[in-house]
């Protein structure tokens, strides 16, 4: 034990040949959108910071742009994460930089109507667009967040632009966190030219430059407690190649702990540490459950090339009382992503794959968590310790997924598609407006239609009332003096927009509370 290093650096599992103990001011668990920003801001204030990251550390030159390499290497559960019934495939990063190292770069500020809902329902009075604006602005400047130029809209996204335009629906080019983007289209496999300003090439280097130490391949297993304080974070070291335990351990004994493992792994770490907060930890998990519709076009789309997301439509984000809203975006069309998303099998599936170059993939993301009766999903632990995610799909959600799919089919037709196909196991083919009603009769049921999520939120919800929340509006874990939660798990609802910029902005704010908590 007790090897001490002083300089800021990134240490991989390969380099950890003996058990280590660290005694920093702050231990940040997780290096994604929340943890990286907090770590950098605290290190810049002169605090000694240690970051633990379960995933590996890869540089842009390591990216070979092959799905077979990237998903196992960079995603949770080696690309196999899903709800327990496999109804919803969960795309979530697991690498230095977290999901920011694999996401499609879409950057929205938190909509004001979401803040308004949080203020009204969860007592988060300090959360206003005005109050967060300086935090968003700082992050946007650091990450070069800007609107995608017109010439950077690929044919896949242009289908959404054209279709929504012809239908008279709201549409806009999205803002992206990129600098020197060549519009290759491989964001989801780790940018090979380092153009995405993900955490691994922005805030984490900032943190390291100010003395922070980041341990990659180092998985936080449990929190050790004494009274109302967490006194240690116990972690195990993983082999960077096999991802199996090496037997080495890292123990961090910080003054303050920041949990930033994301909406699934932060609740799981708390549950492994027997911190349940009366069943609220791991409850109210929201996923923006996604339905997709593939369009086949007479002309090449080549949806595997070009910025994966550059257009969005928020036409249907508010659909009236009792209804769940949805928003429309595009998804890249690489072979594995498409093949595992498509419905059908055998010759039908193969016939679609044979036309992959002419396929456009559009998605409808449902905005869950705003109806009073919505409880979302849960994160729990199986008896053998594995994380389990359940997400019961309510009737209102199926209705939104169905209406979202209809909207996507209409977009495809308006944009000139020959046909559009749902992702049902028995795909519904839409070749004309008269076919859209077929979707009303399709089976909207778990594992009969493929669903996805790339946005994990909640599970450690923030709120004024400790009876109804896990963290305070100052990001402090209830009933604990020195534990903060700074990641997507604090969101009390979903957002209705891609969450990374919300998490960046909240983390930028949270750093002030954490710094004040280091006494």
């Amino acid at each position, binding site marked *: 034990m007790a090897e001490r290093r002083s300089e800021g650096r990134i240490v991989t599992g390969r380099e950890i040949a003996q058990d280590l103990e660290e005694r920093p001011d702050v231990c940040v668990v997780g290096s994604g959108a929340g943890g990286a920003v907090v770590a950098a801001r605290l290190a810049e204030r002169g605090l000694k910071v240690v970051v633990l990251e379960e995933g590996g550390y890869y540089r842009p030159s390591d990216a070979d742009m092959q799905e*077979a390499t990237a998903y196992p290497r960079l995603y949770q559960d080696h690309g196999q994460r899903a709800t327990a019934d496999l109804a919803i495939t969960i795309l979530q990063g697991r690498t230095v930089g977290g999901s920011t190292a694999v996401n499609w770069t879409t950057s929205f500020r938190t909509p004001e109507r979401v803040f308004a809902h949080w203020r009204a329902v969860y007592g988060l009075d300090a959360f206003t667009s005005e109050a967060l604006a300086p935090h968003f602005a700082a992050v946007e400047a650091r990450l070069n967040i800007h*609107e995608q130029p017109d010439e950077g809209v690929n044919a896949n996204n242009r289908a959404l632009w054209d279709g929504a335009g012809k239908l008279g629906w709201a549409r806009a080019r999205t803002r992206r966190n990129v600098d020197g983007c060549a519009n290759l289209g491989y964001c989801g496999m780790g940018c090979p030219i380092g153009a995405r300003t993900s955490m691994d090439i922005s805030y984490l280097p900032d943190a390291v430059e100010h003395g922070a130490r980041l341990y990659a391949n180092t998985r936080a297993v449990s929190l050790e407690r004494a009274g109302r304080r967490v006194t240690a974070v116990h972690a195990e070291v993983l082999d960077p190649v096999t991802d199996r335990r090496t037997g080495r351990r890292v123990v961090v004994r910080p003054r303050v702990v920041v949990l930033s493992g994301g909406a699934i792994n932060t609740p799981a770490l708390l549950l492994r540490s027997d911190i349940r907060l009366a069943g609220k930890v791991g409850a109210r998990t929201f996923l923006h459950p996604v339905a997709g519709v593939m369009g086949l076009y007479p002309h090449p789309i080549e949806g595997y090339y070009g910025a994966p997301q550059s257009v969005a439509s928020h036409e249907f984000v508010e659909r009236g009382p009792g209804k769940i809203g949805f928003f429309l975006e595009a998804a890249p069309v690489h*072979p594995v992503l498409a093949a595992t998303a498509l419905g059908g099998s055998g010759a039908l599936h193969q016939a679609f*794959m044979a036309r992959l170059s002419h396929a456009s993939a559009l998605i409808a993301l449902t905005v869950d968590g705003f109806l009073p009766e919505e409880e979302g999903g849960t994160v729990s632990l199986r008896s053998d310790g594995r994380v389990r995610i359940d997400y019961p799909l309510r009737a209102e959600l199926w209705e939104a997924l169905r209406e979202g799919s209809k909207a996507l089919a209409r977009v495809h037709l308006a944009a000139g598609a020959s046909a559009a196909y749902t992702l049902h196991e028995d795909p519904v*083919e839409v070749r004309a407006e008269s076919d859209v009603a077929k979707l009303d009769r399709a089976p909207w049921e778990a594992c009969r239609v493929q669903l996805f999520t790339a946005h994990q939120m909640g599970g450690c919800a923030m709120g004024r009332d400790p009876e109804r929340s896990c963290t305070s509006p100052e990001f402090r874990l209830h009933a604990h003096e020195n534990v903060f939660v700074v990641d997507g798990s604090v969101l009390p609802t979903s957002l209705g*927009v891609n969450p990374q910029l919300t998490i960046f902005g909240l983390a930028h704010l949270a750093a002030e509370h954490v710094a004040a908590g280091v006494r």
Partner: protein
Amino acid sequence: MYRRRPQRVSILLPGERPGRRGFLKLGLFGAAFLAVGGSGYLATRRTRVRLPAGGPLSVFSPEEATVLMAVAERLVPERAGFPRPAAVKLAEKMDRVAAMADPATQLELRRLVRLFESALGGLVFDRQPQLFTEASPAHQDLRLRAWAESRIALRRTGHLAMKRLVYASYYGSPETYAAVGYPGPPLRPSAERPASRPTPPAPSPSPPGEGAAARPAGPEPSPRPPRRRGVAKPFEAQPVDQSPPLISPSVNDDG
């Protein structure tokens, strides 16, 4: 009278001892499964190993890999230009994917494959009293479809697990890229960052609040295809596709 748990069916692997966790829960079908005799002739039928020569597998037994390859043969039927699953060493690739999973997940997957192969399961579920690997292609397709469309959610889950394993392993193989018209990554692995970094425009003056998509639409984009700076397009565009329907009216017509 001795009474077994009606809700559970055991699919034990060679050398595995029965235990509380050694069961795959099958809900209502468990009872039907047991009603026809869990230890009868059909349950003892053995998979005949038919695997192309390949490296040793770390998760799947040769029998299990044989089942998965038989599934792959049906999920990727013969079609011009599409390599056969064996030609891309699919058994090894599926095994490598499984090898990355938690050992408990690996066990679940192996049990699933055994259950899917089982002649008894075939009889109970699909009225096909034969091993999946011994069934005709038409019957194999029926069994796959029966699982995919089952009223029992667990069977649909099982079908999805096998389908994703097969398709992710198959279409992740560069040997299949040509079949789907995918030219592959646009950069060679050694490629450097483009020499002249394009200067992105200044951040848009987006007011805090509703985000970009809720703002008025920007100027109409021109219809020209996206430009790829510093990246050569490796293949010419595909010929124009006339897009006949993929699904014949008889399959998808709800009339």
